[in-house]
């Protein structure tokens, strides 16, 4: 016959934490996969223009950036306050752009070379003369896929 046991203490078993590392690792891998480290330290100030018909830049490994803008405060003394171009981590002259694109492209895998995209990150107050020069240089370097970096416009 069933007997009601009163004397035995009933305790909830301790919560097993052995799977905690696995869960954390999963989260960790997720963040590792989606992380993109900051590309470079900006030496020029870039406030991208606003637009609505934006497309996402896919294949980040195929994208090289050209930054265009006025030097930030700490570089003003040396480089002045005129619009300058920054390639990877240093200021560059427009004449170096062609060489930069060619060397970046030859560092890529052969099959990927024609997927190279140049993203022009230019400040919205830049004069078009500079942009036109960049575009001409890119054409000479046969880097024909470009993207004008812009941010989503919230309102008119």
């Amino acid at each position, binding site marked *: 016959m069933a007997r009601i046991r009163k004397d035995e203490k009933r305790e909830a078993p301790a919560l097993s*934490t052995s799977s*905690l*590392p696995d869960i*954390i*690792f999963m*989260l*960790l891998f997720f*963040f*590792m996969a*989606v*992380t*993109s*480290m*900051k590309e470079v330290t900006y030496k020029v100030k870039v406030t991208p*223009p*606003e*637009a*609505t*018909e*934006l*497309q*996402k*830049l896919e294949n*980040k490994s195929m*994208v090289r950036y050209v930054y265009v803008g006025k030097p930030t405060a700490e570089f003003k003394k040396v480089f002045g306050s005129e619009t300058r171009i920054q390639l990877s981590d240093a200021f560059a002259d427009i004449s170096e752009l062609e060489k930069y694109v060619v060397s970046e492209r030859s560092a890529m895998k052969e099959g990927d070379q024609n997927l190279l*995209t140049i*993203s022009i990150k*230019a*400040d*919205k*107050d*830049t*004069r*078009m*003369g500079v*942009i*036109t020069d960049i*575009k*001409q240089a*890119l*054409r*000479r370097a*046969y*880097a*024909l*896929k*470009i*993207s*004008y*970096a*812009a*941010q*989503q416009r919230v309102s*008119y």
Partner: protein
Amino acid sequence: MARKKRKISEINSSSMADISFLLLIFFLVTTSMNVSTGLSRRLPPPLQPNQKPTDIDIKKRNIFIVKVNSLNQLMVQGQEINVRQLKDKAKEFISNSSNDPNLPEKVTVEIDLIGNIEITKDHVISLQNDVDTQYQAYIEVQNELVAAYNELRNEFSKERFGKLYSDLTEDQQKAVQSVYPQKISEAEPKNYGGIKDGAN
């Protein structure tokens, strides 16, 4: 002498969670989830050094001239307009739905999946800007022109396939693209310095 069997003690893994937490927090802090976005364009291939820019004979009705001057003012087909009107103007030009003789010619073309259709195959949008045009103004104009194409493509997809352009299959998208091919041409930069805008 009998050897005592040594037990290998288990590795204590209770600190594993802490270590992985640390790593997790590091990646959480350094992550920047923002995706870079932009307007994608394709540049025309460079001119050969001995090649002169050829004047391709384009009928006047097929060309849509957009000029942006150094004060960011917009002139379209000889009229000064606001950027916000540009999209509708461009749409009217590209589609030419009323078969206006002043708007681009319609040519009957056979396209896979769609069949024979009249499209403005030879239209060209010519974009000219000044050296001193602000980048923001230039992007706005480009944006409006792309928006005009996107809207037309969406309207056509809705009508023909009952879906938005982005929801179509790749083949269908290609077909819609050939109905409304993007033809934005940018003028070869002129030797500036001597001639200011207004001279041409």
